[in-house]
């Protein structure tokens, strides 16, 4: 059974075709990349997989379940976590609270139990806090537990965001430009972190990235989009050579009639 199966996924914004006939199967355990020039529809694909957009056509199956049209929190509860292009941490909650609150669907209690502090509430709170502590230890965030995210350097905020996504115990992690805005040192650490996370948490990672150093170093396979269409799929070294990819990124060679002007 495949982890994620995307069939003929298409999305229109009004008359604009943002994504067209995207096909992808992830068996589980891969490090998949999704690249393409600006406006190619990469984030739209992620938004469909994570439930923000309903696909116009096509199917998204996660663990043999059709998830097209589910609401984002339902998709997340099934085991797909994601991060965002821009950091979206909750700034009035501490790092520790951020990683606790993200486990909301695993709480298993509601309003009444949280007011009455029933034994179930106490057990659940203990479990959630223990999980958050584990995550913080694994990602080296323990010393920042009581800091507010906005007071942390950029690279650490990214790390908190990844930690928050990991606390959900996902099977599939979607990373939307994890290296955006990072300095070279931070990028190097990020590459190691991503690999290590995949092995440590035994999950599948699918990432969007512009930073070629990250993509070429991290991804085992990748999908290239241009104007919503898949123009190439394969290993990094194949992609690097692919004429269509080069064309999409660098533009076409000068047409013959334009020479000599």
């Amino acid at each position, binding site marked *: 059974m495949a982890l994620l199966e995307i069939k003929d996924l298409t999305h229109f914004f009004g008359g604009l075709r943002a994504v067209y006939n995207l096909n992808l199967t992830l068996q589980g355990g891969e490090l998949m990349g999704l690249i393409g020039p600006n406006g190619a529809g990469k984030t739209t694909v992620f938004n469909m997989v*994570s439930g*923000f957009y309903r696909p116009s056509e096509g199917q998204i199956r996660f663990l043999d379940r059709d998830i097209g049209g589910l*609401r*984002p*929190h339902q998709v*997340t*509860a099934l085991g797909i*976590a*994601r991060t*965002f292009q821009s950091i*979206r*941490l*909750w*700034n*009035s*909650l*501490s790092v*520790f*609270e951020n990683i*606790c*609150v*993200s*486990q*909301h*669907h*695993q*709480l298993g*209690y*509601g*309003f009444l139990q*949280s*007011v*009455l*502090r029933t034994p179930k*509430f106490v057990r659940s*709170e203990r479990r*959630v*806090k223990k999980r958050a*502590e584990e995550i913080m230890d694994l990602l080296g965030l323990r010393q920042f*537990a*009581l800091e507010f995210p906005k007071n942390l350097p950029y690279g650490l905020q990214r790390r908190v965001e990844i930690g*928050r*996504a990991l606390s*959900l115990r996902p099977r599939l992690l979607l990373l939307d430009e994890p290296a955006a805005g990072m300095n070279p040192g931070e990028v190097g650490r990020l590459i190691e972190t991503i690999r290590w996370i995949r092995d440590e948490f035994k999950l599948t990672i699918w990432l969007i990235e512009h930073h070629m150093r990250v993509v070429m170093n991290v991804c085992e396979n990748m999908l290239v989009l241009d104007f919503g269409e898949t123009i190439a799929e394969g290993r990094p070294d194949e992609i690097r050579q692919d004429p269509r990819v080069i064309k999409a990124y660098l533009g076409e060679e000068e047409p013959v009639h334009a020479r000599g002007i």
Partner: protein
Amino acid sequence: MRNYSSVISYTTLCALGVLAAKLGILNAYVQLVVMYAGINIILSASLNIVNGYMGEFSVGHAGFMAVGAYVASILNVMLFTDSSIFGPPLLPPSSAIFLFPVTLIAGGAAAALAGLLVAVPSFKTRGDYLAIITLAVNYIVKSSIENIQPIGGARGFMGMRNVIDSMEKVLNLPWTMIWVFISVGATVWIIHQLVNSTYGKGIVALRDDEIAAEIMSINTQRMKIVAFMLSSGLAGIAGGLFAHVLGYINPGSFTIMKSTEALVMVYMGGMGSLSGSVISAIIFTLALEAFRPLQVIKWVAVPFLLIFLMIFRTEGIMGHRELTDIFPNLRRWFAPREGRA
């Protein structure tokens, strides 16, 4: 022991207050001001859930208060007193002493239902639009009550005094005061428990970033419903108490003015600060009483107070903090079960 120290000290304080009222140390006017302060605490703390913790802008709190006030009053008058509208009492008047909390909660439940009716259509809207919807609800509630003649219409509704009298006949204690104290304690306790649980912190997450909240598995629609219903339900309970403290209610008591008072208290105390709401409700009540000799000019003085506050302390008295953040020593006594971190 430590876990209950705040409960014990609050209970002792209330018991002293009731005793003082019973022995006549506190005169009727002081008692009234204390009860007003209590009702205002419930109003501001409950509005703080939506306007402070959730970061929405609801301006129709008095509408929910009116629903609670009318439902609780009508139930009480119908069940326990001989009134010209509903005829003889359906239950023995002495049973009011046990059933008063039930009718009070029924009023709160009715207000919570009204809150649900507002929350559902307002999912898609935030900010200004929610403000307009809640403002409209306030007017709808007020106009509806004005036009229901059997319950007095614009003339108002009375008879709650008899309910209190029948309670005092069974056991001579200042019952309204006792119920105000219990309700205030319960309100603050419920909100405190909620916002300090991981579940309740979902409301704050919703305020900070709704998209992130949704993707991090928080059912944002349900959180909004819970927050909105709790807020309006507690306002309904405040309304029920208000009706029984005054003994008379009319739709004119639940206008946009009353909603504004609640808003002023929330913003004066600090958005998202429970202790701020409590402190500002007390200060606001006392200030209104202090300015009473000014008569109409009172409504000039109070807004001035607010303008100065906004100039010199934009975030309100407490900002986002709680009392325990300013006086960490208090935490030893009043913040049980600190989260490990």
